[in-house]
């Protein structure tokens, strides 16, 4: 019998697991995919919003502002790349600057410092702003974070503190039981069904959160998958802007942002299109075109020849247009963390605390005395001095062997990614933990080499090595025998 089962190992579920692991409790996180951070958490703007945008008084505003304030400490404890690069909302010639004033007003109500700057003042910070930009709202507390590392950090730290994760595990049904809830789950890897008993359930299932809520509650929820498409540019384009550049919304939409990533690439997007299919993470000709065209409104000469990849993510938009972080009224012990769309990543630390408190109060949990808040990321040799690096290579020569030549990632880092808690089992798992394959050649060079390391270290057969789990095998047979 678990004290709580968390459905979904995205950034929200993982943050909740980590916060709950402070308490004496049996915690299980079930995740449909082969790894943590496989849904919305892996495909978003990677922004820590300052918090001036959300409607004052909304849960989004409260969680965003709290999450933003917590991010420095979280990043330090969990060894997550995070930078307060500041954000700017730009207003163009054809727009009314009163829109910025409104945002500044919201910021004041939410307790977020902002400043309206003239074109000249903006150009000092951002020389590549478009010619039509007349003024902008600057928010110094805006930041950028690695969403993979943030999710991994929460999840790994939760494991270190006793939480269990069951990956490749899909929840099929949830029923009320005598002491709480009974979940029927399907293990996609072993193709076995299992029944799990738990006192409480946390629903952090992203775009599917409505389905689970609606299994147990008469208060129906409706979540729309809202697609956002992005293009990612090479690091040579990463300094094109230094702040995150937003656009003042127009009648045509919210516009797109242009931002450096915390790893030094340039990211442009997203679009916002509601889709029926909650699996539709495909990019579209119209979407990719729109991202490129619309970006020119705020930033000039985005070097589009340097695009290295494009991707799409699905935001979980609930009809009520706000986060839902509460026990379902008619389902005691069933706690929703639903409708977590933007600013969900920024809010994750605060959502983790809020949801954990709700569970704590239901179960009267007590704190552990041996909770360890510190998690170390995959060791990055590039952060070491020459002497330290040589010492590391002497101790483990794998750190002297470069596997990914674009990002200069060593065999040692990939082995670390495989052998740590919730270790990588696929190319994408390695990529999100180390950045191997994330660079300008997009894994063209390192794919066969990373496959070899996975084969040897997991160990697994070459035919099992996948891009991202079940059914994504990279090779189908040996020569002449397919």
């Amino acid at each position, binding site marked *: 019998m678990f004290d709580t089962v968390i459905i979904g190992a995205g950034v929200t579920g993982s943050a909740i697991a980590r916060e709950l692991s402070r308490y004496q409790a049996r915690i299980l996180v079930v995740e449909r995919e082969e790894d943590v951070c496989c849904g919305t958490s892996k495909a978003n703007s990677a922004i820590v919003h300052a918090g001036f945008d959300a409607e004052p008084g909304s849960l989004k505003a409260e969680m965003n502002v709290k999450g933003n304030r917590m991010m420095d400490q979280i990043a330090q404890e969990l060894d997550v790349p995070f930078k307060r690069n500041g954000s700017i909302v730009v207003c163009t010639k054809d727009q009314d600057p009163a829109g910025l004033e409104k945002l500044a007003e919201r910021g004041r109500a939410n307790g977020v410092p902002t400043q309206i700057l003239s074109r000249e003042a903006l150009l000092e910070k951002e020389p590549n702003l478009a010619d039509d930009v007349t003024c902008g709202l600057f928010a110094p507390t805006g930041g950028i974070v690695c969403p993979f590392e943030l999710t991994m950090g929460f999840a790994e730290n939760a494991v270190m503190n006793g939480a269990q994760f069951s990956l490749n595990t899909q929840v099929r049904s949830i029923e009320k039981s005598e002491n709480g809830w009974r979940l029927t789950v399907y293990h996609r890897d072993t193709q076995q069904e299992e029944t799990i008993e738990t006192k409480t359930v946390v629903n952090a299932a992203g775009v599917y959160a409505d389905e689970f809520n609606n299994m147990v509650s008469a208060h129906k929820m409706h979540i729309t998958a809202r697609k956002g498409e992005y*293009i*990612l540019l090479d690091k040579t384009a990463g300094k094109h802007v230094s702040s995150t550049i937003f656009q003042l919304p127009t009648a045509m939409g919210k516009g797109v942002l242009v931002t450096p990533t915390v790893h030094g690439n340039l990211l442009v997007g997203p679009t916002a299109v509601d889709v029926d299919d909650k*699996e539709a*993470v*495909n*990019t*579209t*000709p119209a*979407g*990719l075109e729109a991202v490129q065209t619309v970006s020119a409104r705020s930033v000039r000469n985005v070097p589009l*020849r340097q*695009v*290295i*990849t*494009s*991707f799409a993510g699905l935001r979980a938009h609930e009809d009520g247009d706000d986060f839902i972080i509460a026990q379902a009224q008619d389902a005691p012990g069933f706690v929703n963390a639903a409708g977590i769309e933007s600013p969900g990543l920024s809010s994750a630390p605060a959502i983790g605390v809020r949801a954990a408190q709700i569970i704590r109060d239901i179960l009267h949990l007590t704190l552990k005395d041996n909770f360890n808040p510190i998690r170390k990321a995959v060791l990055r040799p590039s952060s070491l001095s*020459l002497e330290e*690096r*040589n010492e590391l*290579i*002497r101790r483990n*020569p*794998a750190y*002297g*062997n*470069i596997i990914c*030549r674009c990002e*200069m990632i060593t065999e040692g880092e990939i082995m670390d990614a495989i052998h740590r808690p919730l270790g990588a089992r696929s190319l994408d798992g390695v990529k999100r933990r180390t950045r191997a394959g994330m660079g*300008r*050649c*997009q*894994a*063209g*060079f390192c*794919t*066969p080499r990373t496959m070899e390391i996975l084969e040897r270290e997991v160990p697994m057969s*070459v035919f099992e090595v*996948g*891009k*991202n*789990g*079940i*059914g*994504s*095998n*990279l*090779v*189908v*047979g*040996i*020569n*002449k*025998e*397919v």
Partner: protein
Amino acid sequence: MKTYDLIIIGGGPAGLAAAVSARDSGIESILILERDKNLGGILNQCIHNGFGLHTFKEELTGPEYAARFIEQVKERGIEYKLNTMVMDITPEKVVTVMNREDGLQQLQAKAIILAMGCRERPRGALNIPGYRPAGIYSAGTAQRLVNMEGVMPGKEVVILGSGDIGLIMARRMTLEGAKVKVVAELMPYSGGLKRNIVQCLDDFGIPLKLSHTVVDIEGKNRVEAVTIAEVGPDRKPIPGTEERYTCDTLLLSVGLIPENELSRSAGVELSPVTSGPVVNDGLETNVDGIFACGNVLHVHDLVDFVSQEAAAAGRNAAKYIQGAFDQNARRVRICAEGGVRYTVPSYVRPSEIGDMLTVRFRVGDVYKNHAIAVYFDDQQISRRSRKVMAPGEMEQVILTGKQLSQYPDLQKITIRIEEA
């Protein structure tokens, strides 16, 4: 800091030929740095034949061609390090390298030859829409899996791009038991050699669809289908021309990019057309004592020309080390015009070229019954008719020292394509 007269970055065909020729020009202290576990570079996975017709007057496979040069390197006792990554090069020619045994090390060179080769353009560079499942490979990655690891990346294949690697892989995948359904090419002409279209597609009945591109990729975990469509003169898909192919694999052969990240860190000026260094007739970059050759300079079709170019780089680097390379000699710009996309070299020092200089270039379109014309200032110097010229086949003109000596005040050389 350990020092060498000459450090060569890359042990592929360019690096090997450069090393041999530098040694034969009298340079003793040479180091070749190679990141893979063997010398030979990409030739090791090019197990098809057709290499070396110009150099050895016989048809060799890639590994055989490489072996000839590896032998020459070994006979001469030229030092090389395998499994060694060059992390950085400074304009002062300090080379930072790393491997398992020596860790991170700095080496000082008097001269450097850049011979890092090129890499394949990924899907992202083309903004191909659709899902991002397993089963999408660059043709070279698939070539490595099949030819070196002995495993098949898929059974039913669509190929985008008719560059040479794509064509070669269409044949290889077929021979190894896969079904190649179609090769789609965005341009109205193939980017590969004519002989490869005949031998790799026509001989196996694989259709080549020119002016077509991929407009959708389906499959969440593994590729399930690929849709291609015809493109108009603006290279945008024409609605209504979509054709859907069920398949488990999409191979991309959509262009090669000279790999010049290290060159950039050394301050080497790059050409926006070739993405390779801008060089003079001695293959020297704008950075004193740093030379470039092979695919890092501009993408070649034939390895024979790589070897020739690299041998010249080796000779010139040797001259530089021996103090006989006149960098201050007067230089004349070569202008690429009227259908000529670029030339290598970009500059000529008339006093330094000796008997003759081969200038290589590519055209930007298919030209039938046209001529290659060379002008010294406004004076036509030569004109050579060609039945067909295409972007997929490198062209050349020869400049002689004798010609150049007759024009002491020459300001610019122009190469252009003209109607015959």
